[in-house]
């Protein structure tokens, strides 16, 4: 299984608990290998399997947790 690594901006975080909540929500998604959210940089780095997960699913899971996010074009 090959993973890709993508960066998403995240708005609405106020404390470290928010970063944990987002990482928990993302790593519960099918296909997500690892999520690392930074409060200071206001972004999350997600490693996932593109055959079972998508940027849309990542953004939707973050929205479900109560935050707004967008894929950073590279």
């Amino acid at each position, binding site marked *: 299984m090959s993973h890709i690594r993508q960066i998403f901006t995240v708005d609405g975080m*106020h*404390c*470290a608990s928010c970063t944990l909540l987002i*990482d*928990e929500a993302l790593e*519960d998604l099918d296909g997500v290998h690892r999520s690392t959210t930074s*409060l200071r940089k206001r972004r999350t780095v997600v490693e996932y399997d593109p055959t079972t997960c998508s940027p849309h699913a990542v953004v939707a899971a973050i929205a479900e947790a109560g935050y707004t996010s967008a894929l950073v074009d590279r």
Partner: protein
Amino acid sequence: MNLMAILLTGLLAGGVSCAAVQGGLLTGLVARQHQASATARGTVSVKGRSTGDRAAGLTLPDAPSRGARNRLVDDLVPVGGFLAGKLVSHTILGAMLGGIGTAVELSAHSHALAQVAAGILIVLFGLAQLEVPGFKGFVIAPPASWLRLVRGRARSQAAFAPALLGFATVLIPCGVTLSVMALALTSGSWLNGAATMAVFVIGTSPLFTLIGYAALKAVTTWKDRLAVATGIVLLAMGLYTLNGGLTALGSPLAAKNLAVTLGFEQAPADASTVESAPDGTQTVVITVSSGYYSPSNALLKAGVPTQLIFRSEDARGCERALVIPAFDVEQILPENGDTVIDAGVLEPGTIEYSCSMGMVSGRLTVH
């Protein structure tokens, strides 16, 4: 800051902001435990569930045969464990902060300066919470190792994992909690520090329980508005703390002195408790009771030897910790009885005094 104000802060701001995020962590933990036990029975896969399960509250339909009462107990036990763990760790931290604050405290002056710094810090957290341009980036992020430690607790399958997660949340304080920690640091003793943090966590409990149990979804929907409410509460708390510090310093920027600083009329000075002796000396009696000094503005004559008598009458609050910066006086007054302070010959002007936290204050007007 008195404990009732801390309780209200917990109730209004802490309950909302902490519940929204830490409630989510607890809900995820319980959901994961429920599903792991279901997996053990061979019914559900752990990974791949919808995040909607988390957002809908703690209850998961893994035991349809049980009654609603049992499910309620199932849901409240982890919440209770989480809050108990959180209460223990925060109370211990509060005691440590209060103790450190007392150990390094050199004088009432440095204490007041620390209080001013705490007030400014809390105001900054409030502005960051309100996402005011220029302050948005003011966040204190804990080290990655602390985050990993808390995450480990959130993924534990142990029966007492909720309590451990609650205990570990002391490592990931939100802006409100950091602000209360700053207050604990300037609270004056380890006991006051412990009480400050304990009362705050207790204040957060009702909303946390409610939200953790039923309404995380509603909180995420209302998150932006709640963040604004939390920011406003933080700003108010910061300004109140800052003003207390400025009052204790006798600063012209303290709220009670601003009117005078800006040239407005001040409260009339009261000479009713001043007695002049035949030898030309004067004595003023200032009554010290719960929450006030009376008269709050005593009128004295300049150029004559003066004695101040602080008469405690059932004084039980912080007004007992009397600070008069102009005379370099820092004294704990008795609950009842007189404390005599020789003020020497006074120059015309005003002399400010207050409790060490600056929450109760008075003035001597000398003409």
